């Protein structure tokens, strides 16, 4: 598991920064190189394909808007994952928090119509936070008290969350007269405002970036951030230093779930405006790659989320303008994910001191 050993209460040296940036960029470079080989073998010009990908994701304001919109849920799921990772908890259940959080936000959005308009969004997001956090309470307590492997519990909870929400939208919460597995549309007042029409980019992106900034500050400047980092690096040391490791682990799981819930809430309030069964194409899992590629750092995760967002938006349109199949883009995305986990730093140099 990666840990952000580079962060400390003291500022690391400039060289350490350069090194960590290099380590973060290397996986991307290797992934691009291998994907280029695959493209070559399949008879495409890799330079041309990459140029097209770049244009389709960042070519003009509309495309940039689409890319940022696609990266919004990934910023949040990456952040949720990183919060748990840095405390040494391998939470792979952000997808589940995303589902239950999205459902909670949608419910408030269409049911709580008695609320004043400007309260709708905060109330819906609050519901998403509470439900998302509670979703992670059980695996957190099981890990902290009984040492039950969180990978197993959180992974299983994903399936429960997906099935549970699917049941709800097919039964009690199904929109009247609808044949789709979806809730009614949320009230207009509960929708996040677009900030770059005609793209779907909305204020949810700003919330996500604000949370990243808060996270950067929290992780390096707060006592809890310090404690959770030490817990992640060496639980035994943390215990001996008088840190209540169980409390830290449960707390970080709740926080991770809360941010996962917000991810779902923002996706519902900003993009689809109701809850639809199976509404996530694996945002929670891509979030794991975002956290790993971004090495749990705020800037790193922002860039990683934008990268994956760009691959998503350009992948969708590249088929329209070339005969490159979407699978090639998926392969590229998969490559980046695989190499995000590799620690190339270990290969550089002749070994470690």
């Amino acid at each position, binding site marked *: 598991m990666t*840990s952000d*050993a580079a962060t*400390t*209460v*003291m*500022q*690391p*040296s400039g060289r*350490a920064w350069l090194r960590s940036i290099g380590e973060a960029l290397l996986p991307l470079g290797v992934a691009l190189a291998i994907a280029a080989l695959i493209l070559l073998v399949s008879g495409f010009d890799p330079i041309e394909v990459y140029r097209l990908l770049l244009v389709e994701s960042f070519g003009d304001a509309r495309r940039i808007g689409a890319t940022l919109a696609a990266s919004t849920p990934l910023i949040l799921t990456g952040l949720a994952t990183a919060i748990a990772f840095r405390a040494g908890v391998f939470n792979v259940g952000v997808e589940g928090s995303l589902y239950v959080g999205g459902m909670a936000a949608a419910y408030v959005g269409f049911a709580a119509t008695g609320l004043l308009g400007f309260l709708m969004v905060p109330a819906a997001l609050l519901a998403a936070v509470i439900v998302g956090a509670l979703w992670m309470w059980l695996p957190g307590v099981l890990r902290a008290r009984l040492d039950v492997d969180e990978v197993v519990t959180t992974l299983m909870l994903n399936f429960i969350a997906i099935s549970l929400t699917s049941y709800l939208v097919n039964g009690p919460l199904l929109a009247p007269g609808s044949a789709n597995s979806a809730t009614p549309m949320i009230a207009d007042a509960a929708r996040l405002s677009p900030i770059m029409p005609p793209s779907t980019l909305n204020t949810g992106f700003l919330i996500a970036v604000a949370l990243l900034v808060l996270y950067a500050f929290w992780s390096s*400047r*707060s*006592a*809890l951030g*310090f*404690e959770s*980092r*030490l817990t992640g*690096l*060496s639980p*035994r*040391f*943390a*215990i*001996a*230093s*008088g*840190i*209540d490791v169980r409390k830290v682990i449960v707390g970080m799981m709740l926080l991770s779930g809360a941010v996962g819930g917000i991810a779902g809430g923002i996706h519902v309030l900003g993009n689809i405006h109701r809850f639809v069964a199976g509404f996530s194409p694996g945002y929670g899992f891509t979030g794991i790659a975002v956290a790993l590629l971004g090495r749990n750092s705020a800037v790193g995760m922002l860039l990683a989320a934008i990268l994956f967002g760009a691959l998503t938006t350009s992948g969708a349109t590249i088929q329209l303008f070339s005969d490159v199949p979407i699978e090639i883009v998926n392969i590229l995305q998969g490559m980046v994910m695989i190499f995000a986990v590799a620690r190339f730093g270990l290969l550089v140099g*002749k*070994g470690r*001191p």
Partner: protein
Amino acid sequence: MSTHTLETPAPATASAPIRLAARGITRRFGAVVANNAIDLSVRRGTVHAIVGGNGAGKSTLMKIFQGLDRPDEGTLLLDGKPVVLAGPADAFSRGIGMVHQEFMLVPGLTLLENLILAKEPAAILGRIDRKAALEAARRLEKEAGVSLDWDMLVDDAPVHVRQIVEILRLLYRGADVLILDEPTAVLAPAQIRDLIALIHKLKGEGRTILFISHKLDEVMQVADDITVLRAGRVVGSMPVSQTDKGRLAEMMIGEVLTHPTARPAAAGAPVLQIFGLAARDSRGIERIKGVDLTVRAGEIVAIAGVAGNGQDELAAAVAGLVAPAGGRIVLCGKDVTQLPIQERRALGLSYLSADRANEGLCPAAAIADNALAGHHRRPAFCRSGLLKAGAIKAHVTSLLDRYSVMRGSPADPVSSLSGGNQQRVAIARELDAEPKVLIACQPTRGVDIRGIAFIHQCLLDYRERGGAVLLITEELDEIIALADRILGLYGGRITGEIERGTAHLENIGRMMLGEALA
């Protein structure tokens, strides 16, 4: 070679061929030159000791000999031929094997399984030929003059048995050059004698042994040749007959040390009281059985015992790492038996762990973080849950300066420091907040002479200021140098008490072996 005694190793013939040599080996880590133009010649069939303080470059050189690291400059010669080692496996195939300070046996496997690991005798269908394995084990046993229960799990084997298995493993895989890194650090005095006997036996069979240590007594007993390293350079290389302890110490340190000064104690009120304490280890076996003891302000009380007699459990129970199975612990008049570790710390308890790499420090975290941990919630460093960066930076810098921690940036990981400097960070953190009582476990383990003197002075100064120390150590010299009272611990019980002044190696040794004092 015929017979030889422990005290006087048989002088190896000066004309013995050079088995292993280094020529101008230089290895840099950033700005630090860990090895600086090292020249070394190790004669076949001799014990060659490499001595030097922490950070002298011993470990780096040994890693290079083992193929774990490569020099930036210089050459390795095996039997006079230059070689480039690709890795430990390559080193093994050329006859070089190493026993690391931290043993590398696989838990959950038996001693026999560990012995044959990576070179298992195979029967039909790739099954392990147990009979052949056991035969090989018995042969090695005879060769080494030991006798082991090969079906014992590694987890159940005492430390010295694990070490013998590590050594036999090298023999099993055909090594004739054995590198032993601080092999006596974990052993009791009697076990050290056995180990030295084993080393002499192996030498008698024509093997070459590189013995890394900073304990000069042992080095004088075991070595034929000695090479002294200091700050990455060779400061001297000579046959053992041409030197003595004093000269070696001088070469290692480069300057004359002031010995720690112990002033007469003026013990005050009881600070730590333990009544009928019982504690179990992680497997539920009772290791501490009804221990009573008191430590007063301004007093150092030492626990003398052979490893495995309950010291670890005693320390863990007092520190609050494990719940005691019975009895009471009273800190400054307050019963803390049921309190969690953080509340004990708040009451003035400090704990210097014997396990520096896993518990005393967090190797991957920054030096600054290690120096701060545990104090980070103090009002001086933290307000409303937010850390005060400026105050912390000033505090950490002053702390590291006061404890003379040789370092690069405080943001570097603590693992970038030498062992002695790491321990200074741990001591600085534990003593800095002026605790009421310090549980000091193996405070100088793996620390060089200069570091030991410094740490001893820290403990004595702390006592002078009215601090209470419960000292748990396997170093008898340390106990004699520091303790006001010495309690013997054997089989989980206190076997006796000796006041400072009447303590000497002999009566402490008797307590450690469970003999009641007359």
